[in-house]
Structures are given as C-alpha cells and as structure tokens.
C-alpha cells in the first residue's frame, strides 16, 4: 500500500523538480535552493514515507562518494601547504562565529557545534559554477577560493562523522570525544592504508567489462563502507566518502563516476525535496529574523576572512575583497549536516527549519552578491583611496602652516 502511493508521489515530485529546475537554470539560480522550495510546497500534498527517506539517505551517501571520487589526493599532497593554511584561516574566521551565535541563541554545546559547521561551509557547487559562469576561472583569487572549498568539504566530511559519533554516544564529554575521535581516525587509517598498499589489487578487482556486474560491484563497495561506518557508530557519509577516495586513484575512475552519477543526481534531488518537506511552515515565519541575523553576521565573517587571506598572500585589494564575497553562498553541505542529524531518529537535534531558511537566503542572495559585488568593491576602494589622499593632503596642509 505504502509502496503504491509512494510511486505516484515520487513521480509527481520528480516532475515538479524538473519544471522548477528548468526555471532555475533560466534565471541562473542554484538547483539546491529550488529543490528545497519544491519540497516545502509538496509537503502539503503528501507525506514523507519510509521509502523516500531511504532514497534521501542514499542521496547523502552517493553525494559524499562522488565527492571523494572527484577529490584529488595528488592535488592535496602537491598543494598541501597552501590548502592547509588558507583552509585554517577560513576555519578560524568562521567556525567560532557559529559557535558564538549558538551561544547567543541559547543552544547547548552540541547544537552550537552543529550551527558552527552549518554556517562555516561554503557551497562548492554554487561557487564553482558561479566562477565559471562569471568567467573568473583565471582570476588570481580563484585558486585560493577553490583551495578553501576543498579544505572545507574535507573538514565537514570528518566533522559530520565526528558529530554523529558524539550524538550516538549520547552526550559530549572527554571520554566520548576521545572515543569517537579514535574511531574516526582508525576508520580513516584503514582506508588510507588500503589505498596505499593495495592499489594494484583494487585495480584488478574492479576491472570488469560486464556493465551490469560493474555497477553492482561499485554500488556494493559504496554501500558496504557506508554501512560499516554506521555500524561502528560513525556517519554513513564518511564511509561513502572514504570509499570514493579509495577508488579515486584507480584507472576506472571516470567510468565509476559516469556509472554512479545518475544514481547520485536522482537520489540527491530527492534528499533535498525530503529536506524541504520536513521544514515546518508555521515555524518558519518566526525563524526568518533569526535567519537574516545569522546570514548577515556569517557573510560578514566570510568577507573579512577572505579579505585577510587575500592580503596574506599579497593579492590586490580588489581581488582580496572578491575572494571574500565569493565565499558567501552556503548550500549542499549545510543541508547535509542538518539533514543527516535530523534523519536519525535517535538524535534529538533538529535545527532543520533554521538551516532551511539560512541556506535559502545565502544560496540565493549569495550568488547574487557574488555577481553584483563588483560595484561595491570599486566604490569601497575608491573611497579608501580618497580618504588616504585627504589624510595626506591634510597632514601636508598641517605641515605648511
């Protein structure tokens, strides 16, 4: 019974997604935001079932897998210092802001940590797309932006695993933290060592010409690692991410990506819809002022952090400001953080509606700001130059008197 109804509602959801998505690409808006809005509307027509929820879970798993697969470990080792330092600055500028805001809003420690993660992570999808659309890929600030995004995504994958571990443990204390950290570390090490030592072996195993068997094998690798991570009390997402990382060094990488992408695109879209469907309308009106408040503060910290990083690496003022303004849009990873936590019924920390409001604001406004910030940057720099000129004229006048 439940299956029959789900099939039709799934079909309707997909149809709605298609038309909304078509509209979004016409006006150059991010699909993430639009999919969430579609979910918010659809919640009036049918409920989230266990099946759609399951597809949504797969959506997170596949998304993290693809992220791990496309993540270049070689690039990480080649540019590790640059990625590490820019990433750390960005982290220090933005993560504490979330913690602080959580404290201001009267949250407990775990919820504040979660908020920290949600407002810290910039959307790589939206930003990378905007950079290409705005023809900024050759600009001096772009490589710094992209390095920051790599660091953030990596950090959030680990952070997610950590916070799910803590929540499964029950409460936050020294023993629990150490316990979860050790588990995460052990899981990581297992995959890294596997990737380092048995590269040829893995290459051999997955070298299967039969298309159907190939799909099944790759899916099984993904789901088994996700399930194993869940079994030891971490998040499924980190298992999938590491499986992606493991397969990213193989010769079949492109084939794997092509095979899994359709699954990922479908299930991730459903994940965003399910997320939208579980946002509470009535709740939302109250949350808008808070959302705007968080958006303004966290945008400010991103711009400030970006400007600092630009200066640190001696980019021009203009490029540094552009670097900061390009980090405002939040998107998929914030939703994944909030969504993963909310999906686990044992975890009593929603934060969902607020994240929904916040991501909608920053995804839509953020990409507009990225595009339109040029005049502001120009005005800002001209004003600064005028001021310094006036000051120097002033002091010159003072001297001649």
């Amino acid at each position, binding site marked *: 019974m439940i299956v029959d109804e789900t099939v039709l509602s799934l079909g309707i959801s997909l149809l709605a997604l298609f038309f909304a998505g078509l509209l979004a690409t016409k006006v150059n808006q991010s699909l993430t935001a639009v999919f969430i809005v579609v979910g918010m509307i659809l919640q009036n027509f049918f409920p989230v079932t266990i099946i759609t929820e399951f597809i949504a879970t797969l959506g997170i798993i596949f998304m993290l897998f693809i992220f791990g697969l496309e993540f270049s470990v070689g690039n990480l080792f080649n540019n590790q210092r640059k990625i590490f330092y820019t990433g750390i600055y960005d982290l220090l500028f933005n993560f504490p802001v979330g913690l602080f805001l959580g404290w201001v809003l009267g949250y407990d420690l775990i919820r504040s940590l979660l908020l920290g993660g949600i407002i810290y992570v910039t959307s790589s999808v939206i930003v990378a797309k905007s950079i290409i659309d705005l023809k900024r890929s*050759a600009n001096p600030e772009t490589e710094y932006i992209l390095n920051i995004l790599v660091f953030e995504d990596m950090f959030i994958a680990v952070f997610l695993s950590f916070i799910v571990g803590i929540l499964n443990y029950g409460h936050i204390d020294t023993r629990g933290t150490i316990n979860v950290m050790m588990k995460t570390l052990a899981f990581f090490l297992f995959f890294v060592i596997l990737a380092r030592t048995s590269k040829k072996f893995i290459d051999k195993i997955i070298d299967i010409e039969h298309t159907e068997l190939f799909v099944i094998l790759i899916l099984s690798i993904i789901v088994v690692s996700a399930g194993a991570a869940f079994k030891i009390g971490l998040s499924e997402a980190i298992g999938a991410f590491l499986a992606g990382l493991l397969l990213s060094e193989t010769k079949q990488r492109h084939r794997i990506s092509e095979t899994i992408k359709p699954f990922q695109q479908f299930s991730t879209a459903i994940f965003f819809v399910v997320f939208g469907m579980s946002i509470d309308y009535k709740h939302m009106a109250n949350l808008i002022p808070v959302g705007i408040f968080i958006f303004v503060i966290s945008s400010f910290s991103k711009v400030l952090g970006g400007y600092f990083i630009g200066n640190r690496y001696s980019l021009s003022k203009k490029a540094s400001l552009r670097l900061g303004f390009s980090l405002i849009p939040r998107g998929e990873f914030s939703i994944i953080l909030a969504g993963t936590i909310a999906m686990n019924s044992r975890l009593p920390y929603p934060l969902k509606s607020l994240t929904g409001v916040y991501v909608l604001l920053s995804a839509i406004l953020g990409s507009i700001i990225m595009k339109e910030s040029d005049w502001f940057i120009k005005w800002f720099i001209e004003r600064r130059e005028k001021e310094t000129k006036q000051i120097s004229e002033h002091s010159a006048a003072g001297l001649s008197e």
Partner: protein
Amino acid sequence: MSEIKECDLPGIGKKFSLELDSGDKLVVVIHSSGEREVFKFTRDSDEPSSVTKLTDEEARQVGAILSGAYFQPVIEDEPKLTMKNVTMEWIKIVPDSMLANKKIEELDIRKATGVSVTTIIRGETVIPNPCSGEVIKPQDTLIIIGNNEQIKNFMSTFEIKQRLEK
C-alpha cells in the same frame, strides 16, 4: 623563453599562465570537460580584458596554427630563398663505386664536376671539410654541395645511382 606557471583548480580543471614580453599575461584554463578558456590580463590588472572560449577540437586547431604546424609563416621561407640554386646531396658509397678507396685529390672532384665534398660520414664518425688526402671508403656517406648543373655532372661522371633522401 618565459616560464609557464601551472596550477590546479580543483573542481574546474588546470590553469597555465604565461608572462608575455609585453608585460601582459596570458592564461589558459583547461576545464575537466575538455573546454579551454583563454584569458588575457593587461599589465597589473587582476581582471581579464578578454576571454575566449574554445571547444576541445577548436583548441587543437588553434594550437596547431600557433605552433606553426598548420601554416609556415614567411619568415621561415627566407633561408630557403638564398639557397635557391644550391643543393646539398647525400651520397652513399657502394663497394663497387668508382669513388671507393680513392683519395679526393686523386679523383679531382672539384675540377671535374664543380662539386665540393663538405663532409664524410663514416659510421659513427663525421669528418667535416675533409682534406684532399682523405680516402673515401665503401659504406661512407658523402655530403656534397653544388648547383643543380654541377650535381648532375657529378652523378654522371662517377656513375652514381644511389642517392640518399634526407
């Protein structure tokens, strides 16, 4: 030659930037999709003054043109013009050749044909400007120089059939 700087753009592709003699900067971004973008930055600017998007195929064509493989510019033709009437020829000496085991002065090559022997290649060794006492051996390769008339004369005088293509 100026240095080409290479840089990864994770999620987008790879960036190559080239500082030009004029002070401008040329940046090529190769997207993971295969698309290329060529940016020009004028001196000290951090915004591109022009952007050109190329598909994979277009980029290869333009690349061939730029490297000169597609069309040779006029500059390259000039050295050939000065050599118009002069030909160099590679001659392999067969064992029963009239030239084999004889000294160059004995054969009186220049007087008889007008051709000069500029180089003898003997296995691994190369003898440039051989003196008149040098003995030509079988399996040698001679490099001779002369105008077309003189070369023809040389070929018929010494009954040479085996020429080497360069």
